[in-house]
């Protein structure tokens, strides 16, 4: 099994392999055991599906958590006895306890940010698309790739078990700022649950490093003949920058997490100084709680681009295919991804304008943060121009791509408020922030992911997902996302702080009770519709309409030159050679020209 995979790896590098070898390998794969095919698989396509399905399970859990805490926020005066049946002491009398509320909020954030939108999104599409779109038989190291999934699985198991600890899982917010997260006395969630969180994240970081290094080396070294960097689809560019960001920033979070583990368990004082907690005077002196925030946000900011960039790439690809037009400004699209990736490293302290950061230093972070709006604007206008005079096919993937652009605009523009330190003083940690990042990195990235799933589902399973359910899924989610998050901006402009269990005792904020009830109701409907998507996904794996042609979307990229259900190794014969960029749609009167077609005699230049 493993020698077979190494064998593929070498073939990929050589980019040339004989037919004999391939018949042999097909024969071999026919006998593959269940374990090596579905569990400890080294086929990048299977690993992608493992990431996707694990991510979906996490998304259901994380989403359900938000539904539960929205019950408390929307209906603070009501009791829900069934909650006590399920959660026992965490919901005595059918009311969510404060500790439980904060545990739910923390887990919701952690799960969605890391386990769903990092592992579930990049893990899935980096694994699935890199070899298929650059013309390789598998990743540079299929074995490390498999390990990457299993470290993610281990991280998942640890995080999931932390839900069952007697003192509960971590409850200090997904940003786990010390000293709150360092002191068990300060919060139930900072007891054993926090150690589980940190160890789980350490495993997660290992997973993401193994994956990231693999993605980078595969993209750099294993492209098929003719696939120059500037002929790569934008998906691959986006995934490439995502991987670079992850590899350079995740280790910093790892160091931050390890120091926190030391402070918690070994009596060090990296983050602790002059603390009196619940009347107890602690001996720690000389640490800095702010140090952790620097370490955290050095990953935390790039992290939002790690989440968003694969979506940027997939949306560009899906939009071009379904507009039957080239993506407008390919090089500008690559350039803006590059600019966003570079800037991502230089803006972390915009999360810290009100921590007592030196105002002079803050000024640079304002400048660099608002600079991000320039490449973002380029992307938006390029997408708009891609749609302009196209011939648009509204496949479910295309709907989500267009929805993505709408959300990216809405959420991106509010970033201009928050990145400006003067306004951040007022808006920091209010619902304005909640609205901003949920729209631009939460829902928008989900839209990118949905676009990807609907678009590449036929390649994954050889079947289509059901269109009617997909349309319902899209329209309810788009409308719901705006109904949930648009009004939150107003609460933010009223200064309403985030992460409050209950606003009824606040004269300044209690006028939003109706709004909260409305948001909670919509959130439940939107959650139910996501279940419809999950149902559609699994139903279609077995019962979906069968794909009958190799290239159902009329697409130029290489994955559509493989058989309908490609085996391990992707192409039964030689890997095709690439002769052109991937966006020749509608050129010289032709609907599309695949990347593998040589440049014709009298073909025009673009």
């Amino acid at each position, binding site marked *: 099994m493993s020698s077979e995979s190494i064998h593929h790896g070498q073939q990929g590098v050589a980019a040339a392999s004989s037919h004999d070898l391939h018949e042999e390998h097909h024969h071999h794969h026919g006998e593959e055991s269940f374990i090596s095919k579905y569990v400890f698989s080294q086929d990048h396509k299977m690993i992608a599906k493992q990431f996707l399905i694990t991510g979906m399970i996490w998304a259901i859990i994380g989403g359900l958590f938000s539904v539960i805490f929205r019950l408390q926020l929307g209906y603070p005066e009501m009791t829900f006895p069934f909650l006590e049946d399920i959660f026992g002491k965490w919901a005595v009398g059918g009311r969510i306890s404060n500790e439980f509320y904060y545990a739910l909020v923390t887990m919701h954030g952690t799960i969605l940010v890391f386990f769903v939108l990092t592992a579930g999104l990049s893990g899935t599409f980096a694994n699935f698309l890199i070899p298929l779109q650059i013309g390789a038989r598998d990743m540079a190291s299929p074995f490390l790739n498999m390990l990457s999934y299993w470290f993610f699985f281990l991280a998942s198991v640890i995080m999931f078990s932390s839900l069952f600890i007697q003192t509960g899982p971590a409850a200090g917010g997904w940003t786990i700022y010390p*000293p709150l997260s360092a002191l068990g006395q300060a919060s139930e969630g900072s007891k054993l649950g926090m150690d589980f969180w940190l160890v789980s994240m350490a495993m997660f970081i290992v997973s993401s490093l193994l994956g990231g290094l693999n993605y980078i080396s595969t993209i750099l070294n294993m492209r098929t003949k003719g696939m120059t960097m500037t002929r790569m689809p934008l998906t691959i560019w986006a995934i490439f920058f995502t991987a670079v960001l992850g590899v350079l920033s995740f280790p910093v979070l790892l160091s931050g997490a390890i120091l926190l583990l030391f402070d918690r368990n070994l009596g060090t004082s990296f983050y602790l100084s002059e603390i009196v907690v619940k009347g107890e005077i602690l001996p720690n002196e000389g640490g800095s709680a702010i140090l952790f925030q620097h370490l955290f946000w050095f990953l935390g900011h790039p992290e939002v681009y790690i989440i968003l960039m694969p979506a940027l790439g997939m949306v560009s690809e899906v939009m071009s295919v379904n*507009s039957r037009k080239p993506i407008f400004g390919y090089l500008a699209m690559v350039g803006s991804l590059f600019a966003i990736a570079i800037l991502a490293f230089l803006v972390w302290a915009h999360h810290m304008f009100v921590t007592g950061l030196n105002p002079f230093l803050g000024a640079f972070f304002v400048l660099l943060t608002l600079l991000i709006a320039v490449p973002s604007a380029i992307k938006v206008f390029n997408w708009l121009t891609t749609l302009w005079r196209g011939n648009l096919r*509204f496949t479910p993937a295309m709907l989500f791509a267009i929805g993505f652009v709408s959300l990216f*605009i809405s959420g991106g523009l509010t970033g201009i408020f928050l990145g400006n330190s003067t306004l951040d003083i007022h808006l920091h940690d209010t619902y304005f922030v909640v609205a901003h990042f949920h729209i631009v990195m939460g829902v928008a990235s989900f839209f990118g992911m949905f676009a990807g799933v609907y678009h590449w589902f036929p390649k994954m399973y050889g079947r289509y997902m059901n269109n009617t359910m997909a349309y319902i899924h899209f329209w309810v989610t788009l409308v719901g996302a705006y109904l949930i998050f648009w009004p939150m901006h107003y609460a933010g402009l009223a200064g309403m702080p985030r992460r409050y269990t209950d606003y009824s005792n606040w004269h300044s904020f209690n006028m*939003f009770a109706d709004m909260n009830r409305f948001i909670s109701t919509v959130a439940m409907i939107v959650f139910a519709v996501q279940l419809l998507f999950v149902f559609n996904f699994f139903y279609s794996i077995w019962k979906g309409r069968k794909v009958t042609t190799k290239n159902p979307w009329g697409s130029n990229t290489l994955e559509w030159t493989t058989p309908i259900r490609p085996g391990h190794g992707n192409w039964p014969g030689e890997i095709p050679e690439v002769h052109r960029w991937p966006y020749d749609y509608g050129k010289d009167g032709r609907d599309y020209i695949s990347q593998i077609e040589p440049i014709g005699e009298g073909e025009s230049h673009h």
Partner: protein
Amino acid sequence: MSGYFILAILALAFLVTFQIAKASEYVSVLKGEEKTFQQNNRINAFLFIVFLVLGLIGAWWCNDLFFKKTLLAHPAASDHGEKIDKMLWLTLGVTGLVFFLTQILLFWFAFKYQYTEKRKAYYFAHSNKLELIWTVVPAIFLTLLVGLGLFYWFKITGDAPKDAQLVEITGKQFNWMMRYPGKDGVFGRKNYRLTDASNGNALGVDWEDGSSHDDLESTEMHLVVNKPVQLVINAQDVIHDVGLPHFRMKMDAVPGIPTTLWFTPKYTTAKMKEITGDKDFVYEIACDQMCGSGHYSMKGLIIVETQEEYDKWIATQKPQYLTVKAAQTEASPKVVADTLKTTAVPASAKPIAQNTQH
């Protein structure tokens, strides 16, 4: 009971949707895929336009409903707040323009360029001129926003005026404690190891430092209208945040690292009641940094009043040192003698005398 009812309805809705979805797939096979595709395409294109129109109406309606509940509906209660509101309006204007322009184009294009057999997509791969335009124009607007933003930022974070009133605010799970420097204008030294709430020293003041003897401690913050105030911000256990929505100010309270902010309150609490038309109006301090299970209840009060009202209030306050001393004398004279020997022997009588003299 109603829970099961809702579940049953949900399951039913699911089933119906699923049956319709399945049926529509069969119909599409009967009608021909091409025809179904075109029909679906038209429906979705139409829905995009509907979404745009309803979205714009919805945005207007939402604004109508909620704007008056935001702080922008009334003037900011501090000088810094006025600057921040100005910046906010400018940013709202610029981003609002871009928002409507791009969203309308997006959904309009989606509708207008929907698939028809007649049209061929226009091969348009790039245009340096266009790309230059939408690099430069946003850059110019951003320069404006950054420039003005930083101008205000340095004003707001600059040094407080010399005559600013000093107030110390300390956060702990889950309340705020205030301290006033008293007549000498200097806070007494603190040492966190001396913290002893049960003996009246919740802040860990070092009574050996004579300047602590006239310091006042309070649970509310009293400020004088039109007089600049500088807050010295501390935290004892975890990070908190002094959030002052009406003054548009905010600053973290970090254990071990004191921070500050300053502003000038412009309206007394009474005046604010008039301005907002809300007879129950109060200036609330909201903790804006997740600090544990009681985070949502960590509230403080600020009372902004005229100089006379403030003077009247401060006259009723007794220095914490005296309270502590009195309590100790009452409890056990011997112990007091001991503790005072180690803590405040040289200054035990003097500062009190000073207080009465001034």
